[in-house]
């Protein structure tokens, strides 16, 4: 465990975070439409 661990970023992580940002934007629009 003493060797340094390398962390590899993958495009699927970016997509996952983006998708969830889109969910929040959709919730915002939905909220605005029905309040």
């Amino acid at each position: 465990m003493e060797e340094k661990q390398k962390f590899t970023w993958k495009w699927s992580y970016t997509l996952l975070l983006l998708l969830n940002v889109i969910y929040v934007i959709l919730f915002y629009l939905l909220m605005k439409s029905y309040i």
Partner: protein
Amino acid sequence: MRFDNLGQIDWIVLIGTLLFIVLYGTYKARGSKDVVDYLKGGSQARWWTIGLSVMATQASAITFLSTPGQAFHDGMGFVQFYFGLPIAMVVICLVFIPIYHKLKVFTAYEYLETRFDLKTRTLTAILFLIQRGLAAGITIFAPAIILSAVLEWNLIYLNIIIGVLVIIYTVSGGTKAVSVTQKQQMAVIMGGMFIAFLIILNYLPLDISFDKALDIAGANGKMEILDFSFDFENRYTVWSGLIGGSFLALSYFGTDQSQVQRYLSGRSVRQSQMGLIMNGVLKVPLQFFILLIGVMVFVFYQFNPSPLHFNPAGVKDVMNSEYAAEYQALEDHKRLVEDDLRVKQIAFARADDPTQEKSLKEEIVQLNRSEDSLRSQSRVLIKKANPNAETNDKDYVFIHFILNTLPRGLIGLLLAVILSAAMSSTASELNALGSTTAMDLYQRNTPGQTQSHYLKASRWFTLLWGVIAICVASVADLFDNLIQLVNIIGSIFYGNILGVFLLAFFFRYVKGTQVFIAALINQALVIGLFFLDVYEVINLPYLWLNFVGCLTVMLIAYILQLIKNNSKGNSVTS
């Protein structure tokens, strides 16, 4: 114990579904040869199996009973609690999974011995066993108390039935049986909830479209999904969801063996990562959907009579007391408000003039406030009639709707949904409790035995934890909202455990003894903070305990290491 409150077709659907899942799981996962087979499912799981298993583990019966009730009373804001989950999924995929797979560990705590020492591994394993052992009992107890109240079934028998069904396949088939059954349980759960949603829409008056239903919900404050305020008093805001929620999710999915074991069964690092990404993609929409069902139940009750208080045990208490007449008067008043509300809602649905719509909206909001006030007064009466009574009826809203509105057959299916959810979470918990006891405590301290010996030990420990969970469920007592109870227990321990793991992954400077001492001090500190909040000395909502607990353990360990290194440096110099 009553059996006549369900129809024959409900019993057939309910018993048939549950027995099929138990027997299929036991059959499919028979013949484990060694502990790798039993505890890691032979390391053969593909990403969709892992994803479904992770989701089924988190989605307990509490999720399906409490969440719609939460939306019924407080609207959709609870969805914000899950905003941090995708961030946690990315961190786990990036850091935790590659290390766990590389070291081929059976449990998350095993890694801590490689990084720190045996005592830190043992301490975190024991903290996990305490909190998860209690939580497993609550996972069984939560649906049992509700079903026993509404169906007049014996609580103890129900605890035993749920517990024994889970024990049968979890003890015999281990991790593979858990994931095989969770696939079917998720199919039953999602199918049942989707059908319930369609039925609710179908039961709304003809001129109430889905759009109009959302309009009615919005007029009554149920569509306030996002709260961007920095108010510490508000439990669910975008910020508490992002910060508190990601810490809670990071601890739960990254360090809780009941979740770690799901993705350790993956056939490769990639498969495990994809499983968690699937969870990150589906979790927020799934919670949104369950909350939306609760909001639609609210809209349904705008056109149909609803009880003043949804928990039948509370109503029974008050009706058998000197406050019965007062309660009856509140009920009569509510009927009048309800009648008025129904007329106004229909007029609102048909209104095409914006001015008329606006004035009707105001009247509806006013009527709903009156109804809320009557509900509050009813809770006061129940509390007076029985000071020990639970007056929070959120957990009873959806089950009341199911039992009193859905057609025969579907009631059985929805009960199967609730019990499947209880079984899927309990199975993962027992599986993890058995594994941690077998690998971190038993095998570590009695090395040199054969594979079949450890396999047998794992089975016995799983059985033992099953019995303990049933015992905890049988003595548990309900307080406040059930979903909160599980989260509070988690929040007290999770931050500390997560802090230890973060130190292990990112702070190579800090060593085992300092982490161990820091974890002990910190656990006492977090419990102290929780009670200071309970007794209103400070204001710290429990979700923040994860965050605080995690940061303080890291800080204390770092300071202890700094002091040790300084004193070592001084003694070398002198």
